[in-house]
């Protein structure tokens, strides 16, 4: 009988993280409602009511903001995708992905300026990215095999510095125009009549979204149904097991870095078409990092969904809440969104569960 008396009341376990989180959330909501009632200066009203009021009263602006968030989210996701590919196959946290995007775009534009036809320039750029992948595998990865993760992470910093220096030496430091027309990418905007207002969609953004989806589909098929894709998944699961069944790690690494290079080139074209091609993109590329931790380092769907969450969240936050605290919050909001998710799932939304044993 003593068992029954010790049983927790109503079966709710108050130590469970979810229950506690729900309780805290409820308390915050309650406090918020009480606060708004007794709020004399209107600060809380500005934070909790005004933005939603604006959203409802001007739905066309809301749609426009969400669309812009969606597009930048797709571009963040593309950079994050390059990271994920490399992290899955070689366990390297590749900081150089952002620079690879800039470098690929610069090479493309630089070749075109030298008089190479646009589509030949694309092919030549792919060649350059392949040479880069082979060089990185030979010079950086192979000698550093079996080193701790942080050493490999640092080595990709070295690659970053090297590529910045190389790009600026060869192509000069001035911003360049992406060759949008020559690649038959659309220009201009479509005006949509919506909720009594106008929403303008840039055609290049639509193209970016379509191309990104296509590329993700192709990558998924490549990973799922080809021989090399199977080998890549095997390497991602376990280096040793893959080696033991005769998969060449070196070859796989070249392929993965080359794939990341292709992704980088496509990202570079899309991004270059929206602004210009310069090393200023490097800072924007850091935005892919919160996307990564939000989605999980090892998940391709995670990179995409993470990108969309960050992109939309950031634009909504900047547009509706940014002015309250002085604006420019885009630079850090993404990290706080990701941090919020991480507190509940430390391995990201879709990342492999971290199991720790002694």
């Amino acid at each position, binding site marked *: 009988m003593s068992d029954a008396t010790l049983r927790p009341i109503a079966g709710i376990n108050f130590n469970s993280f979810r229950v506690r989180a729900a309780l805290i959330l409820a308390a915050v909501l309650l406090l918020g409602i009480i606060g708004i009632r007794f709020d004399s200066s209107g600060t809380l009203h500005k934070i909790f009511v005004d933005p939603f009021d604006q959203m409802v009263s001007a739905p066309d602006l809301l749609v426009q903001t969400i669309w812009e968030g969606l597009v930048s989210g797709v571009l963040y996701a593309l950079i994050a995708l390059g990271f994920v590919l490399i992290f899955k196959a070689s366990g390297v946290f590749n900081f150089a992905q952002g620079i690879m995007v800039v470098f690929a775009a610069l090479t493309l534009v630089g070749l075109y300026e030298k008089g190479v036809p646009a589509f030949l320039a694309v092919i030549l750029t792919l060649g350059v990215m392949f040479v880069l992948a082979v060089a990185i595998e030979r010079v950086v990865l192979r000698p550093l095999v079996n080193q701790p993760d942080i050493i490999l992470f640092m080595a990709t910093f070295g690659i970053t510095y090297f590529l910045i220096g190389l790009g600026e*030496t060869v192509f000069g430091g001035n911003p360049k125009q992406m060759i949008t027309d020559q690649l038959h990418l659309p220009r201009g905007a479509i005006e949509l009549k919506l909720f009594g207002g106008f929403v303008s969609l840039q055609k290049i953004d639509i193209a970016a979204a379509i191309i990104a989806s296509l590329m993700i589909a192709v990558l998924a098929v490549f990973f799922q149904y080809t021989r090399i894709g199977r080998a890549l998944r095997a390497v991602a699961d376990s280096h040793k097991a893959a080696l033991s069944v005769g998969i060449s790690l070196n070859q796989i690494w070249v392929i993965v870095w080359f794939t990341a290079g292709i992704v980088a080139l496509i990202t570079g074209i899309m991004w270059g078409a929206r602004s210009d091609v310069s090393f200023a993109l490097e800072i924007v590329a850091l935005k892919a990092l*919160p996307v990564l931790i939000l989605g999980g380092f090892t998940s391709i769907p995670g990179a995409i969904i993470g990108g969309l969450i960050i992109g939309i969240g950031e634009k909504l936050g900047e547009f509706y809440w940014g002015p309250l605290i002085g604006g420019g919050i885009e630079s850090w909001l993404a990290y706080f969104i990701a941090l919020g998710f991480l507190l509940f799932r430390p391995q990201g939304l879709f990342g492999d569960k971290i199991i720790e044993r002694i």
Partner: protein
Amino acid sequence: MFYREAGQFKSTYQADMAVFPIKQDRIGLAIILGIAFIGIPLVGGDFFISSVMIPFLVFSLAAIGLNILTGYTGLISLGTAAFMGVGAYACYKLTTFFPDVNIIVLILVSGLFSAAIGVLFGLPSLRIKGFYLAVATLAAQFFLQWAFVRVPWLFNYNASGAIEVPQRTLFDISLTGASATPETRYFVCLVLVVVLTWFASNLVHGKIGRSWMAVRDMDIAAELMGIKLLNAKLLAFAVSSFYAGVAGAMMIFLWYGGGEANDVFTIRLSFNILFMVIIGGLGSLIGSFLGAAFIASLPTIMKFGLPALGVPLSGATAEHVTFMLVGALIILFLIVEPHGLARLWQIGKQKLRTWPFPY
């Protein structure tokens, strides 16, 4: 020949556990301190002291701070520059409010503000690990950098939006501001660095340092052995940020003599300090100094060394080639010695000990 420990017997536990158990090491340390305190001010010119030695000392202190967090406790942080910024702005506000308090005291106190902010941003480390944590610390970097620019109270509503270092004196010798000589600023830096290094050495060799290392090696096992992870990790963040904050205050007040966060406390500085720690050697105080010397002097060496060797380079190209070479050197260095300069130093000492025999 001369580096022998034969005949040096240890008769107490304390002597056995000493940080420098060999007499020659203690003599060597005394010589280094002698050179730093007497030799360099006598021999070095103003340029050498103000653009080589002071940056080296400031970066060393920041690297020690990050090494405590990353090397000893195993928590990667990419927000060091932001914590340095907190130190600098805290010092600026403090010296505005208390102009009569000695600036050296204020530099140390501003480290405490940085420590508090560090603990705040260290809280996620209890749930998040590894590279996830590294990216999470970028939140601190970007948020604080944003705050430095957007909160005008922090820079006293200056028109320039930058810290303007006022003149502060000790015994009628000006320590900061335009009239302070490089030698004075160097001495202040040196004393601060020596004292704080001594303090750090005592921390990491004692109980606290051991609990940090246990957390680094495996935090679950450490927890089972009775180490409170919350306390150990947050203390590491606090101490690390304290050092970073003091280094940041020193950087603005004793080296730059004023500056704006967006120029100084950028993410690139964070990365550079991480470089120093890794190239110097994770979990080694001497490594922090070696790494700081290497990274801080590399651009200067490139700038003045290459033309001296007969490699003709002009302005912009030189800068780009320097970037390339720095990148290549980092990779080369990691390949040659992934454990950093501290390991090379140890190998050198071992070779010296057995010299002229191979082993």
